[in-house]
């Protein structure tokens, strides 16, 4: 394939990525933002050209050793659900935008530490980026079958690298706030991760089923190699030890590589996405590694005895069979894995470079004088140039240092250097006592070991044959520490980590830390406690004025955004907007606002410039933190107590209200009683008066008067009896004798005494029985009373020749009895009140009839005591009373 054609393909491919990034950025649809799979796929930026080519080389030459790079992460990933969730929280509330920010903020927000971490990352990652460029360049030449040109300017691979540099510097610096999420880039990375997996699956299937006859065919043929068995087992306990150390190296790398930190922490949109990632990402790696094995052995079989680089089997195999399409696809897959690594690494390194080195050490003074637009432009420009510069630097590195070395060793050296940050990193979230000095000394010591143990031997031999002079003496002196059964890289990892962790722990324990460190230590370790009001956890004492700080903020955020942020702050903490002095919360809040743009260390320096902080001793800080912790607990208790009190007072109010209601009811009742008693007494009295005054009354009239006196007296005693009875019912003095009874028989018993009256009024009475069984549990004598009251009431209001119909049925475990009588309707507004004591309708004429006025009230009480209900409604030509009695 010609250089030009392949270059066009690359161009098209990059255009596709541009397009995806652009669309994702523009649309911002839910599909992109809330998609946990995009997050999980973006983590696959871990699989670089090293996986694509290097692992195949390792699998072919040293068998199982290609696996630790993936097994290590697999061991670590389940712990992400705990560790990464916390780191995401810490980063979110502190506006952390890079690994350097994260570690240095914890150890007292130190400018120097963040700069050192940035340098470590640069040293570790630039060769690694160089490695990717090497892979792109070599595969480019391999596919086009052209030799690598000595002149950089005429080498077509150079242009590919330039293209990538432009792409990443353009898309990586869209936001001036580095803690902002980059949707476009991440979507493009996720797409690339998908494509690289897809292409390697195509290649794998091609090799397994097209070149060979299935997997077992490859396996069968490959097992004839002499070393086949040895390569599919550990090389004794030594091999296993090396293998294990390699797992540990890659396990720390998956957490600490700047690009992994960036995709996993900074670009995390929702904490729950981590949950998807912890199964999806291992699955992704599993599929990837499954195909590496057959491709490597197929390569061995095809190119047995020929002098070819096994790292490029994946391109050479399809090329060998003249399959241009698959060759180009594999090339694109490799390109994808390289590009995504280059882009993310360059972005995160450029953030570190600008926020932790260039701005705090050089440009801060200049920024203070400029206005917002100028500053924003400058910050983005710094990042743009550093992305571009980093890629070009890596390119130069590749050209001068790593032309001859293998992908695998350069990658592992990067891993070991990055692993030096592990004690500080994990110490940050788990150990309160970890101190700045411990981190610094441990880190530097670890780096020195890496430098002499790995970097010098790796690159020294690019130009020299053997150690000379002083260097040789030095290496001889340290030969005592050589561990014979470990490889060079595992050995250096072991020693450097041992020394690093030891110094970190030792110094931290033996020296007192700075109060600021301890403050952040509490915040990091107890993040779950402070997540809601983290600004409260920041301890600061001194003099500061809102206007000064506002001034600074305006220079970076602009007037409008500053105002907006201040309003939010004042709302959140309920602070008067006229307040002039700034408190610790405001200081932390402002630092956070600036942190995303210029890094945490620079933000602190800027704010320090306009405030005057009083010294606080470590003891005081600890006391305050302890107090604030206690306060939080106390607060919680107080809230609980006040809630209880509120409930209590609510109850009291309710009780009071019901008492008032009852009191009024009692007054009404007494009124009614007095009124009801007076009527018969008045009648008796007037009859008595007439009889007493007038002796000449004819006997008949006399008799009539006397009869009146008797009926009225009866009525009087009936009323009094009913009042007493109802009172007893209400106070539960009349016990219910609930037994099994036949409801129809009870009804008959109630009806019999009334039959005479019914016949007199010429009323037609009937029963409808829809019951399957007639035995129910109730107090029979009460029920008879109930029926008599209801029927008596019905009789009163039924006109002559009217109808009374009683219906029995059961529904939903309830016995329902309806009593219908023709007659006048009860006014709708009275329907509910007829069961009240001495109920009297506004329309006195209709209802003023004989009776105590307590009958229905007694009915309701009886049925309530049975756990049932009673109500009346107007239906058709009359009124229906419904009694509902639950079956037991």
């Amino acid at each position, binding site marked *: 394939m010609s250089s030009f054609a392949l270059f066009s393909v690359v161009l098209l491919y990059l255009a596709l990525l541009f397009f995806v990034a652009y669309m994702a950025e523009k649309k911002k649809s839910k599909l992109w933002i809330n998609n946990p799979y995009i997050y999980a796929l973006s983590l696959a930026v871990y699989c670089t050209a090293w996986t694509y080519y290097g692992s195949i080389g390792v699998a072919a030459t040293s068998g199982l050793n290609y696996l630790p790079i993936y*097994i290590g992460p697999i061991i670590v990933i389940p712990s992400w659900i705990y560790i990464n969730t916390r780191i995401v929280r810490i980063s979110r509330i502190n506006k952390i935008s890079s690994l350097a920010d994260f570690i240095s903020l914890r150890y007292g927000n130190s400018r120097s530490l963040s700069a050192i971490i940035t340098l470590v990352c640069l040293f570790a990652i630039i060769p690694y980026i160089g490695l990717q460029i090497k892979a792109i360049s070599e595969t480019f030449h391999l596919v086009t079958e052209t030799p690598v040109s000595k002149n950089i300017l005429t080498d077509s691979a150079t242009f590919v690298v330039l293209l990538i540099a432009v792409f990443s510097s353009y898309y990586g610096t869209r936001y001036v706030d580095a803690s902002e999420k980059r949707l476009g880039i991440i979507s493009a990375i996720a797409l690339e991760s998908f494509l690289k997996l897809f292409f390697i699956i195509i290649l794998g299937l091609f090799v397994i089923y097209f070149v060979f006859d299935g997997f077992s065919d490859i396996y069968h043929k490959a097992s004839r190699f002499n070393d086949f068995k040895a390569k*599919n087992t550990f090389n004794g306990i030594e091999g296993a030890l090396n293998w*294990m150390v390699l797992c540990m190296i890659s396990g720390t790398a998956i957490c600490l590589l700047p690009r992994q930190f960036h995709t996993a922490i900074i670009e995390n949109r929702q904490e729950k996405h981590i*949950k998807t990632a912890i199964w999806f990402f291992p699955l992704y790696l599993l599929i990837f590694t499954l195909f590496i094995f057959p491709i490597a052995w197929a390569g061995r079989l095809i190119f047995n005895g020929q002098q070819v680089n096994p790292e490029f089997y994946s391109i050479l195999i399809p090329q060998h069979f003249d399959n241009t399409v698959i060759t180009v696809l594999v090339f694109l897959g490799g390109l994808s894995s390289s590009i995504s690594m280059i882009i993310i690494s360059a972005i995160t390194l450029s953030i570190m470079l600008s926020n932790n080195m260039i701005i705090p050490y050089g440009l801060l003074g200049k920024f203070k004088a400029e206005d917002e637009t100028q500053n924003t432009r400058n910050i983005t420009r710094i990042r743009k140039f550093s992305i571009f510069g980093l890629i070009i630097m890596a390119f130069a590195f590749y050209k001068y240092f790593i032309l001859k070395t293998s992908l695998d060793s350069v990658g592992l050296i990067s891993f070991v250097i990055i692993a030096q940050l592990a004690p500080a990193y994990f110490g940050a979230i788990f150990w309160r006592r970890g101190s700045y000095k411990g981190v610094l000394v441990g880190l530097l010591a670890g780096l020195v070991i890496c430098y002499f143990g790995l970097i010098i031997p790796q690159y020294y031999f690019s130009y020299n044959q053997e150690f000379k002079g002083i260097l040789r003496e030095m290496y001889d002196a340290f030969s005592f520490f050589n561990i014979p059964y470990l490889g060079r890289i595992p050995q250096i990892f072991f020693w450097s980590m041992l020394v690093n962790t030891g110094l970190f722990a030792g110094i931290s324990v033996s020296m007192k830390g700075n109060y600021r460190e301890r403050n952040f230590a509490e915040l990091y370790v107890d993040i779950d406690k402070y997540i809601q009001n983290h600004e409260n956890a920041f301890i600061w004492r001194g003099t500061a004025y809102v206007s000064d700080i506002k001034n600074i903020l305006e220079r970076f955020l602009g007037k409008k955004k500053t105002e907006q942020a201040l309003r939010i702050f004042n709302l959140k903490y309920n602070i008067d907007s006229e307040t002039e002095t700034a408190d610790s919360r405001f200081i932390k809040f402002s630092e956070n606002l600036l942190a995303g743009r210029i890094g945490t260390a620079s933000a602190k320096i800027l704010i320090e410039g306009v405030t005057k902080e009083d010294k606080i001793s470590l003891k005081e800080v600890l006391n305050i933190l302890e107090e604030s912790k206690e306060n939080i607990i106390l607060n919680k208790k107080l809230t609980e107590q006040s809630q209880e009190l509120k409930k209590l007072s609510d109850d009291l109010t309710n009780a009071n209200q019901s008492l008032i209601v009852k009191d009024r009811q009692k007054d009404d009742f007494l009124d009614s009683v007095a009124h009801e008693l007076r009527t018969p007494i008045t009648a008796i009295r007037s009859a008595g008066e007439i009889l007493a005054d007038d002796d000449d009354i004819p006997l008949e009239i006399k008799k009539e008067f006397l009869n009146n006196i008797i009926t009225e007296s009866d009525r009087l005693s009936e009323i009094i009896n009913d009042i007493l009875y109802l009172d007893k019912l209400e106070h539960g003095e009349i016990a219910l004798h609930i037994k099994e009874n036949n409801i129809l028989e009870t009804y008959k018993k109630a009806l019999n005494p009334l039959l005479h009256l019914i016949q007199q009024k010429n009323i037609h009475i009937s029963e409808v029985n829809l019951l399957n069984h007639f035995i129910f549990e109730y107090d029979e004598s009460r029920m008879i009373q109930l029926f008599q009251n209801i029927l008596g009431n019905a009789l009163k209001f039924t006109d002559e020749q009217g109808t009374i119909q009683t219906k029995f049925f059961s529904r939903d475990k309830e016995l329902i009895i309806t009593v219908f009588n023709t007659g006048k309707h009860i006014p709708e507004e009275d329907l509910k009140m007829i069961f009240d004591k001495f109920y009297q309708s506004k329309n006195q004429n209709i209802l003023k009839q004989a009776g105590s006025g307590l009958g229905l009230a007694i009915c309701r009480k009886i049925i309530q005591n049975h756990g049932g209900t009673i109500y009346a409604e107007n239906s058709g030509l009359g009124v229906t009373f419904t009694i509902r009695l639950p079956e037991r």
Partner: protein
Amino acid sequence: MMVAFSIPVSLLFNSEQEVLGYPMLLVYLFAVWMISIIIALVIVKKYE
């Protein structure tokens, strides 16, 4: 995971014998890998 991949345990499978026609160690490593994915998936779904 730490236990399953630790040296003593994985060395148990370090033999030239074959399981289902494939090297025992390879089968073991990938099996642990696969099982861990399934366990993670099950746990995550359960607490969703």
